[in-house]
């Protein structure tokens, strides 16, 4: 599957967390990321890279991701993205469940 079935959300707006919302992308839309972050200047690029890698690793090519970041580490960003994907009906690869 190149996208997800429905819109879903995971994470919180607490400090050190990130709220991820994922929504299905239309065929060929690519990975569209909207990012708000308290550390945008320092880590904005890094956060986009980890978001993109996390969804690509699950074989998803067309998706809209909104991330509202409160200073989350990469592991948290990855975990919240996977949780949102899972809630959106994506079938995740065995090893990262």
């Amino acid at each position, binding site marked *: 599957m190149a996208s997800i079935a429905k819109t879903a959300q*995971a*994470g919180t707006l*607490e*400090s*050190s*967390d990130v709220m991820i919302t994922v929504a299905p992308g239309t065929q060929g839309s690519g990975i569209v990321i909207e990012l708000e972050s308290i550390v945008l200047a320092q880590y904005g690029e890094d956060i986009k890279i980890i978001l993109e890698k996390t969804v690509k690793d699950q074989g998803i090519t067309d998706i809209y991701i909104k991330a509202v970041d409160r200073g*989350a*580490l*990469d*592991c*948290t960003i*990855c*975990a*919240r993205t*996977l*949780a949102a994907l*899972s*809630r959106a009906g994506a079938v995740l690869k065995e*090893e*990262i*469940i």
Partner: protein
Amino acid sequence: MDLRRSMLFIPGNNPGMLQNGGVFGADSVILDLEDAVAPMEKDAARFLVAQVLRTVDYGVSETVVRINPLDTFAAVDIKAIVPCCPDAILVPKVESAADIHQVAAMIAAAEKPEQTPVKIIALLETPCGIVEAYHIAKADPRVVALALGAEDYTAGLGAMRTKEGTEIFTARTIVINAAAAANVQSIDTPYTDANDEEGLLADTQLAKRLGFKGKLSINPRQIDVIHTVFNPSLNDIDWAQQVIHAIRKAEAEGSGVASLNGKMVDLPIVNRAERILHLAELLGLMGGEK
């Protein structure tokens, strides 16, 4: 010997606390998927703890994950968590050896071939669990400790939980005895009033006197007090050194019997002395003593 003087619970769905869980110097951190996580967030916490185990360095602290009970999400928790190489799984509400057999089988199925075997710590928090304590401890070689969870246990008894803990005295001694008989560690229930440092001290001292090897903790502020109690005192170390000295002397003199201050030094005493010295060495309490 694994050091588990303190085992600190950290809520499994709180990134800030998971990120900082290693700074308090607890011997074990317990990343909690059970009571600390709301029912709707079980999946998110599982993803988070899995990622955290792969990336966060907890330094000297042993990593333990408290999974959900066998009748809820234990299977999916184990499948997700075990490949991320935690040191141990804390299994809640264990009531029988069969529960442990089931968990051990699921762990074995989830482990990667090259992985260090994941240990099991059984949390006994029901009257049935206490009755079966010894069999639970003996159920599988992965079991390294029994821990007492007194809140649910007293509810199961229909008793009031008090600070003095009279109502859990029997459970405590049963857990300690069963663990000792099975040659595993016994870990005491948490002291739940985080603001009462004197109460914590008294409760931990009681636990140590009864024979517990460590204590669960719900607040990082408790770690120092718990360690102070479970660390061997200078008197303990001094005594232990005298015991070992007496044994060496007896051996050198070719005598089969050693004595210290007129008392015979027998094997259990030597074992206790060795344990104290080992602990002191692990904790760096031996170096530089004048």
